[in-house]
């Protein structure tokens, strides 16, 4: 790794060369993230993997023809062979019995095989100028020349311009192709443009990431963004930002540690975003979903305690504030001892119960709350019995869960649909 000066040079953009690399990788990352979102939404992101592998023979042939690393020709070469690969995948999956995934894997490995073959021929041919071609495999942002940067930035800007200009028709087409056709959008032209933009983004992106890992620059930003929003405009902004940051990060590593290929670091950054989002994003992330499930089971437990208290009191025909022994509760219903302690602590905090040693009694709010739960339980039992034609001895287990989730709104609907009932199917009174 480089020293602290390299680090500062890079972050503070102290050299003009660094400015070019940073601007270039930021734009490459952003444009790939942007256009990749559409590939992601069309569920064709693995086609992107095939296209990027297929760029390699194009790059090699362009080099063999020009005998030098001319950025324009290399770009053209990868663009053309990327397009050919796209068409072949489409042809094969439409015209033969081979399925889409087989067609993708077939073209991917064939083109890459040819690419490797050509690359080794160039290398063994011993031209001095070939030294840079290897960088197309796993990427080397720091090797990008100033002239290249102009071109790549131009192309990246073109892609961004395309997405911004055609935002609305693209949105309609990606979400509902048939609808887009029905309102007379030029879907075929749009698809051609979108595919071209994807191939172009790949042709540029392989400079930084390399052909093997390029797919990640298309897929991962969109996949990460998906956990944060469902709105297309925000999805695009987030994906572009993640792509841009990761591109910058890869260039940074490449600058401070010249032996390091750029691609893997860009991909590592992207993957951390994607997998991190899968875990930590609020709402749809796994952690928050697990928390929600835990709070559900806590809610069920404490509500079950309240319900048992109500049922015991109901059986005794006693006053709602009578003390009840904990042991009586355990006789009434099975509770896990440890969880039970947690449950009554929660209820205590909410002022639903008052605890005195091994005795418990309901407060006024606790009584109302316990009535509500029993009411929901019995309403639901009645609903299963009357509207779903279930036998009276089969309705209890389901009601045990539903009592915890029915909202006041649903409760109103239930009462109305059941025509203001008084008794449940077991002839127990439904409490007010």
């Amino acid at each position, binding site marked *: 790794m480089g020293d602290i000066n390299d680090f500062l040079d890079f972050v503070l953009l102290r050299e003009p060369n660094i400015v070019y690399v940073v601007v270039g990788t930021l734009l490459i990352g952003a444009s790939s993230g942007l256009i990749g979102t559409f590939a992601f939404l069309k569920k064709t992101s693995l086609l992107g993997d095939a296209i990027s592998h297929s760029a390699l023979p194009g790059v090699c042939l362009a080099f063999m023809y020009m005998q030098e690393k001319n950025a324009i020709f290399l770009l053209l070469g990868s663009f053309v062979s990327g397009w050919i690969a796209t068409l072949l995948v489409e042809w094969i999956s439409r015209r033969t*019995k081979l399925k889409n995934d087989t067609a993708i894997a077939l073209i991917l490995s064939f083109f890459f095989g040819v690419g490797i073959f050509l690359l080794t021929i160039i290398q063994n041919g011993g031209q001095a100028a070939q030294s840079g071609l290897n960088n197309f495999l796993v990427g080397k942002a720091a090797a990008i020349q100033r002239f290249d940067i102009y071109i790549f930035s131009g192309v990246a800007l073109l892609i961004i311009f395309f997405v911004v200009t055609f935002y609305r028709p693209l949105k309609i087409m990606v979400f509902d192709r048939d609808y887009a056709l029905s309102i007379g959008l030029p879907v075929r032209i749009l698809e051609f443009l979108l595919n071209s933009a994807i191939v172009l983004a790949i042709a540029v992106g392989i400079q930084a990431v390399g052909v093997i890992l390029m797919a990640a620059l298309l897929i991962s930003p969109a996949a990460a963004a998906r956990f944060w929003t469902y709105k297309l405009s925000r999805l695009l902004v987030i994906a572009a930002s993640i792509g841009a940051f990761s591109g910058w990060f890869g260039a940074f590593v490449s600058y401070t540690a010249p032996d390091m290929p750029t691609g893997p670091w860009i991909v590592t950054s992207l993957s951390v975003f994607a997998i991190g989002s899968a875990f930590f994003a609020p709402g749809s992330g796994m952690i928050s979903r697990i928390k929600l499930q835990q709070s559900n089971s806590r809610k069920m437990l404490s509500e079950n305690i309240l319900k048992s208290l109500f049922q015991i009191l109901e059986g005794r025909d006693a006053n709602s504030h009578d003390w009840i022994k904990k042991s009586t509760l355990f006789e009434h219903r099975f509770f896990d001892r440890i969880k039970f302690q947690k449950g009554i602590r929660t209820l205590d905090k909410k002022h639903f119960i008052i605890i005195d040693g091994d005795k418990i009694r309901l407060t006024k709010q606790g009584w109302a709350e316990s009535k509500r739960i029993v009411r929901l339980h019995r309403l639901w039992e009645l609903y299963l019995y009357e509207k779903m034609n279930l036998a009276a001895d089969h309705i209890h*287990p389901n009601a*045990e*869960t539903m009592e915890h989730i029915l909202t006041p709104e649903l409760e109103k609907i239930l009462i109305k649909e059941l025509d203001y009932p008084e008794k449940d199917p077991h002839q127990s009174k439904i409490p007010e």
Partner: protein
Amino acid sequence: MKERKVAVEAHNITVAYDRQPVLWEVDFEMNEGNIIGIIGPNGSGKTTLIKTLMGVITPDSGYVEVFGAEINRVRDQIAYVPQRESVDWDFPASVYDVVMMGRFRKNNLFHRSNTNDRKIVRESIEKVGMTPYINRQIGQLSGGQQQRVFLARSLAQEADIYFMDEPFVGVDAATESAILELMTTMKNLGKTLIIVHHDLQTVSEYFDEVLLLNTRVIDYGPVNSVLTDDNLKAAYGGQLNVLTKVGDLLKKREFPIREKEFKKRSKS
């Protein structure tokens, strides 16, 4: 008359995909020796139901018994005819190969077929009138012929209960009457046929009993008593408002279908 046994018993089955229930508290007993139709609109859970009955899908709550036993003990007594579209017909296999799959069992996968297997396979193919095509690749067959191959495969299983998923979809008239003829023959042999079907017009013609389904059981019994205007309105007039809302809530709030202790208890 001989007393009829219960062939299939579903006890409070609830099945959810992604926590959203597609079957709600399905509960019934089906007697053996009948041709039973499972009827309902698209997306009403018909396929999910028979897959659950066969133990292909494990329900989130409730349990199934076949001939009074847990399904794994009576696997050899059930046969399955899946939806025709559920497989890739380009698969490299001949009619004979596919029907031979009906002779596979969990514990004979490492064996070769014996003469008895081969005899049964040929007979089954004969019964559906596919003998002329026995070596044909399955992708070259018409829809009706493909359906017959699936029927022959289930016949080769020599089971007592047959679960069929939409066997009449996309078949020609000749295949349809062939299937009906087979159904009658099998019924006369005392077999039970449980058939997913969606065409209301032909229900009374095909079935002894129907189960009207729309995520919940609307009604089950003899055809005439089930196909009333009220029942049909209930089945085809959309799902119950309350059920839909509760289903959405369960999914949104990551709620379990059953509390853990009840899950345990229901498996006894």
